[in-house]
């Protein structure tokens, strides 16, 4: 079982959730986050004359889902296809092992509980 965490542009969130649903991933959660990557923040205009302010954090969306090992490539591709624009700031995907899952209602564990 793998935990897939994807950071991407907020405006892509509907595309990502659609893509995940289409490859059979029905469970995930996501939230709006701020932070910075290689780009180290963005300049924003303030609207008062030509003043600008460097904001060290960029808005992104972080989506987390747990999938079985054999679905890894399919899910990663679905996320890439729905988020890639080719420009700086497309985001990253992190994959890690999950030790166990327990479904609270039934007590099922492991892949059964995904």
């Amino acid at each position, binding site marked *: 079982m793998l935990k897939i965490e994807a950071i991407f*542009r*907020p*405006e*892509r969130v*509907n*595309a990502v959730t659609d893509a995940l649903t289409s490859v059979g991933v029905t469970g995930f959660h996501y939230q*709006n986050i*701020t932070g910075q990557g290689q780009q180290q923040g963005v300049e*924003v*205009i303030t*609207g008062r004359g030509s003043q600008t302010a460097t*904001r*060290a*954090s960029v808005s992104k969306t972080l989506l987390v889902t747990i999938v079985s090992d054999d679905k890894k490539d399919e899910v990663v591709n679905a996320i890439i296809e729905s988020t890639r*624009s080719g420009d700086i700031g497309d985001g990253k995907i992190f994959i890690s092992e999950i030790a166990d899952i327990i479904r609270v209602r039934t007590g099922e564990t492991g892949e059964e509980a995904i």
Partner: protein
Amino acid sequence: MDSGHTAWMLTASALVFFMTPGLAFFYGGLVRAKSLVNTIMLSFMTICVVTIVWTLWGYSLAYGPNVGGDPIIQGLIGNFSALGLDGIRWDPIDSSGSFGGSGVDVLFQMMFAIITPALITGAFVERFKFSTYLIFTIIWITVVYAPVAHWVWGGGWIGADGAGALDFAGGIVIHITAGSAAVAAALLVGKRANPGLQPNNVPYVLLGAAILWFGWFGFNGGSALLADGYAVNAMLVTQISAATAATTWGLIGLFTTGKISGVGVATGAIAGLAAVTPAAGSVNPLGALAIGLGAGVICYYAVELIHRTNLDDALDVFAVHGIGGLWGCIAAGIFAVESIAGVKGLIEGSFDQVWIQAYTSIAVLIYTFVISYVILFVLDKIPGLGLRVSETNENQGLDLAEHGEQAEVNDGAN
């Protein structure tokens, strides 16, 4: 100078002004959070741009003959005698008792011109190009609003000097034109990528509706153009219709969905206000109760019906203002009381007024639709303009894409 009338008309002008910021929040609360700044800015910039147009040529085209000279085309359009507000007088009421052509008339009518294009914006929120909208507004005020205002209130073919239609405060001039242009705009800009109503802030919706309601006392009460018993009746029937329509909408919601929604009641109130607008100078309190009840029922089902079509009129401008305004115009003919309106309505046995109300309303509906469609069609074809933002910008939200700003920035320690 009569200080009492002057004080009331100045106050009424300020009240009508405040409706547009109220509308900005009413609409702002109804959209997705990523386009909240844009939705408010559509109304805010309308205030600024229309003021300039009105000063330079708008007032003159609509009401120029009140200042001097003959209309360019009798019954259809004013003239250029008041370009740049040249020649207006400062005493609100002249020796013949007329309010037209005074400085406070310019101010009061300006606020009506401002809110009308702002109402249209509800149809195309979350996807319309901001710069194109500003150009559209300048043209629309010139070729739709100013002529129609002239037809109804400036001595043209619809109002007291023409067909004799009753349009006290702008059922035809404001609500039917806005609703009709909204359909043209929604058709041409197309559906949103993700249609449907997802209000980001219901308190904004209710607060915005309350501000509109408050401003409407100036809108209808001020349309008596004097501080007299006519104004008192107008304010009273305004309150009754708004409250009745809001209650009606809430109850229909309760019986069909099991809940009374804040967005629904706010919308019902606006429908009731739009409907009583043309009738506020011709009906009595019980007539207003009937108009409010009708507005609640008719506009509720108009919204339901239009949602089943392919038209993405995002904030139901046509269902609430177009249909609400049309109902109000016809209702003004049904419930007119001779002691108030000076003409008999259907309830007093005369069908004539209903017919006058109906054909003039429909004529303006069609005129507005055709001209608005042509303006938008042409703007869409001009390179560098166009009606719609790019798909990426629409997904990102118009706040960042069009203004480089966000309603709320959650930057942590920053």
